[in-house]
């Protein structure tokens, strides 16, 4: 009787979540793999299998390669720049006050900076996109160009120049991301015992030395987590690019990334089969990235 009641309880608690999750999440994912082998357009009731044709076509698709290249740039630049800036600020905020009294302390006003830095993180990406579309405006009405003109420079077409547009988008992503990683790394730094810094400071280590010899090695795990997160965030640049650059990744595909192509192919061109093939590629890229990052950055853990 008691066993029965236990199993009833377990089943009752699991039934709805599992059903909901199966229908809306796992179902579509499984179907996506299936559809990637068809030429389905979203309307026909029967699926026609065409083998690996979609994947073969991807090889000759100029736009696909462009999206992949941009993706590569994002994947490399976004994590590196964000982690470096965030580490720098986190160090200043937590330990920048230098060794004083019992252990290290943060720089004056660190609470205020932390609150301000983190704020962009709570803004919706779509809102940030619209905001920066105005900030980047090519004439003197845009705040960046307005300032440039004031100082006597020519206005710059931040989102219009093909060589510049992707970098302008990446800058916005960094703008939004840094605060989160400052907080993340700060939490990591707070966990480092104060005696380590005291001992090193007694031995005459300066702040720069403290950072590279103590903080960084002891923070490796946190940085690694941050790295994976940023890599995955790079795959999600979708909303920002859609708002800032439209669904063709203007100018002329210079800012397009795989998610944008998937969305456009499925919902504008109704090529659901082809879009699913891109989705499958994206899936394997995401997994490869996560595994590679975790593998290559894994070293022996330093025990505190």
């Amino acid at each position: 009787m008691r066993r029965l009641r236990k199993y009833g309880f377990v089943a009752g608690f699991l039934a709805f979540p599992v059903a909901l999750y199966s229908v809306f999440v796992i179902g579509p994912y499984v179907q996506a793999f299936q559809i990637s082998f068809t030429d389905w357009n979203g309307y026909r009731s029967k699926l026609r299998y065409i083998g690996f044709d979609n994947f073969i076509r991807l090889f000759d698709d100029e736009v696909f390669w462009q999206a992949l290249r941009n993706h590569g740039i994002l994947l490399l630049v976004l994590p590196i720049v964000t982690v470096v800036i965030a580490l720098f600020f986190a160090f200043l905020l937590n330990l920048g006050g230098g060794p004083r009294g019992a252990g290290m302390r943060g720089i004056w006003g660190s609470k205020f900076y932390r609150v301000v830095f983190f704020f962009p993180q709570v803004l919706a990406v779509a809102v940030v996109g619209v905001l920066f579309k105005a900030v980047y405006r090519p004439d003197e009405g845009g705040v960046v160009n307005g300032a440039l003109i004031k100082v006597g420079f020519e206005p710059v077409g931040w989102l219009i120049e093909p060589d510049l547009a992707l970098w302008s988008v990446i800058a916005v992503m960094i703008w939004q991301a840094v605060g989160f990683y400052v907080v993340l790394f700060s939490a990591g730094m707070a966990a480092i015992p104060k005696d380590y810094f005291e001992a090193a400071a007694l031995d005459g280590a300066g702040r720069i030395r403290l950072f590279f010899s103590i903080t960084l090695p002891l923070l490796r795990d946190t940085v690694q987590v941050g790295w994976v997160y940023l890599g995955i965030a790079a795959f999600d640049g979708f909303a920002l690019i859609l708002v800032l650059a439209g669904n063709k990744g203007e100018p002329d595909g210079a800012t397009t990334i795989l998610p944008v192509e998937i969305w456009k192919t499925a919902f504008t061109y109704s090529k659901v089969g082809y879009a699913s093939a891109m989705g499958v590629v994206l899936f394997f890229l995401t997994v490869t990235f996560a595994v590679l990052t975790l593998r290559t950055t894994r070293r022996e853990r330093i025990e505190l």
Partner: protein
Amino acid sequence: MAKDTTMSRAAAKARPRTGVLGGLSHVALLIWALLIILPLLWTFLASFKSNAEIFGDALQLPGQLRLDAWGRAWDKAHVGQYMLNTVVVVFFSTSGTMLFGSMAAYVLARYRFVGNRLIYYYFVAGMAFPIFLALGPLFFVVLQLGLLNSHVGLILVYIAYSLPFTVFFLAAFFRTLPDTVAEAAAIDGASHTRAFFQVMLPMAKPGLISITIFNVLGQWNQYLLPLVLLTDNKDKWVITQGIADISTIAGYEADWPGLFAALSMTILPVMIVYIVFQRQIQSGLGAGALK
């Protein structure tokens, strides 16, 4: 205070590099803070400008305090409607996520039964898939269920896609709770369900708060799913869709102050909530990333 300054002055004398470095640190921090504050402040000020002022010098302050753009954004551009829709959707989807997520996580973390590990990994696997892979099929699943262009459909989809991380996070949390309390509740004659709601859930409060904040933010900011699932009916749109649309329309109708008012209107409430709860939000999101 005075003593403090003399002390730090003495310290600066002893190691002159500290002073310069300290100054540079402040400059760097201040620049980044300005990079964040200025665009937001500029948006806010631009909502009081006239069209001519907006196309003129960007660094000029508004000539007078015009409030009409705010009115237009609220009524004509439906920012009020979009906000209300978003609040309703996020309220129900986050409540649902927390209820079903904690139920599943609790059972998976604390009960032994055949298939437990399997179901746990079934949920956790959802974290590895990019949502874009599911997009096409998801649209047709929702269409066939007759839930397209409805808030109910969007809420159910939000819950479903929030479950993997919520279950993963909360299961880890429930595992750390002591067994003795649940046993005591059982001896006192509490049913499994009652033990869960009245004993275990309150104990898991810190974990629940973190993951609630994580889900509220994630669902409030969601843009992709509503774009796919709420296409036709503008009355049902959420704020992210609305803002992107207002931005497009502003180009045609040349109502730039209206756009900036709409932007300010969406940013301000978020800013107020953030300032009030910033400690919880930062630790909530941080904990979310570290688990």
